[in-house]
């Protein structure tokens, strides 16, 4: 059995609710959909027990009603585990993961600026990457956003 398959089995053994939600896309690539409420437990287990010490980045997605967030974790042997959570777009609140990955701070700030995520527990700091005078409520990576609409609005 390959390392990836072993990790998949460990995850399923520990969290029965992940049944059918962990897929091995190819060698070294595992993807899993995780319920929001159980995310902290899965992340802690993956980072500490399954030895995923690296957070490559966090991808934010606009999926219509929801925002999706993918936490791309990696092991020293190159296996990556991509944990995805979904939250409702009208209250897109998630917890910071800086307690597990201090380097996540800048990736979380990017989610705040570009997708309008609310990150609970993220410490005060400089925004990234939009300018200080950027209008409130404008999230460029949302699908209904475009630069022209913002320009027209400013021209009014």
């Amino acid at each position: 059995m390959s390392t990836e398959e072993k990790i998949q089995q460990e995850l399923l053994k520990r969290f029965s609710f992940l049944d059918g939600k962990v897929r091995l896309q190819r060698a070294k690539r595992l993807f899993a959909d995780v319920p929001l409420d159980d995310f902290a437990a899965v992340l802690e287990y993956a980072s500490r027990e399954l030895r995923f010490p690296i957070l490559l980045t966090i991808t934010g997605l606009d999926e219509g009603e929801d925002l999706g967030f993918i936490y791309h974790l990696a092991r020293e042997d190159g296996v990556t585990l991509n944990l995805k959570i979904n939250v409702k777009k009208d209250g897109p609140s998630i917890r910071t993961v800086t307690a597990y990955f201090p380097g996540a701070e800048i990736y979380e700030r990017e989610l705040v600026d570009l997708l309008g995520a609310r990150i609970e527990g993220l410490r005060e700091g400089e925004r990234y990457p939009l300018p200080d005078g950027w209008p409130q409520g404008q999230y460029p990576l949302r699908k209904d956003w475009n630069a022209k609409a913002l320009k027209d609005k400013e021209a009014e």
Partner: protein
Amino acid sequence: MHDIRIPVGPQHPALKEPESFRLALSGEKIMEASVRLGYNHRGIEKACEERTYIQDLYLIERICGICSHAHSTCFLQAVEELAGLEIPRRAAYIRSVIAELERVHSHLLWLGVAGHEVGFDTLLMYSWKDREIVLDLLAQMTGNRVNYGINTIGGVRRDISAALAREVIKGVDALEKRTRYYIEVAKEEPTLINRLSGVGVLSRQDVLSLGAVGPTARASGVGRDVRKDDPYAAYGELDFEVITDKHNDVYGRTLVRLKELLESYKIIRQALDNMPEGQLAVKAPRNIPAGEALSRYEAPRGEDVHYVKSNGTDKPDRVKVRAPTLANIQTVALMLEDRYLADMPIVVAAIDPCFSCTDRMISLKQKRQRRRVMRWEELRVYGIEWYRSRGVDFSRLNNSLKL
């Protein structure tokens, strides 16, 4: 209690790209540092969603002028995985050859910048002169010094002929000689050793917790390298070592980059000697089946990460880019604290930052601005008038300089 707070940047004394630091000083010591980025945000991820995959390839290649091949390859690996394409082995080898030549020109560029930042401009002149050798080779192979355009979905666009391969080997031989000389300089020249040792200290533990990448991580004893850990292109079939160092400072980062050059030459020679015969590319579909893929690549500055989500059309649903500098920049504030202000330029330069890569996304002009191109003569007249209106008259100077 700190005496003074100063902003440094976004127009920065050490680097040619904008970023801003706020430093709290007590005398000459930096007590606190914070970093503000985003000045180069150009909207590339958003723009990718509105363009076809092949258009995106050329856009993504322009995320960065130095590691352009890194970004285009990283993006294509994800797209090719989604399309179920396996690129020909010859194409994989060519991608690795270009990738290593790119690393060579990037590391030589860095060596010059590092020399400049510590007042050792002879090193800048030497290393940039040598860098021309590799840039000329890249131009011969691809038609360009940077932004090579060698990649296409399913493979590469240009072959490396046997004659060209011989030219490359000749260039690599010359570069190896020079690199060995630089390593000797780095090991023996007190100017470098004393100026760089103990500066920009980053412990192994800090690298692990902040997730630093590339030579910055490897110089603190963390031997992570995607070429070994998650091989792509032809790296799985090539023999090379991951260089690490335990100095944990700017001196260590210098040694790591110099020794990595030797590994790159080794890789280039092997890849050219053992290049498999065969076609350069497989045919790619216009529409890419729905799915998602994560791609990793060891760029000169560290790991580059791309995530692509497709929806069955000819345009991606989402393209996400994490350039290596974003992973490294968080270590800078830490490295500056409790150090002298004069160390700041070299500490920042030592992660080999690239802010164009890091800030990929948006610029909105407030008002429509007209672009105008000025001819040399017009510019000269404009300059003379500008000074004359301020009471200085240059117009009577005899300017015999022919330009």
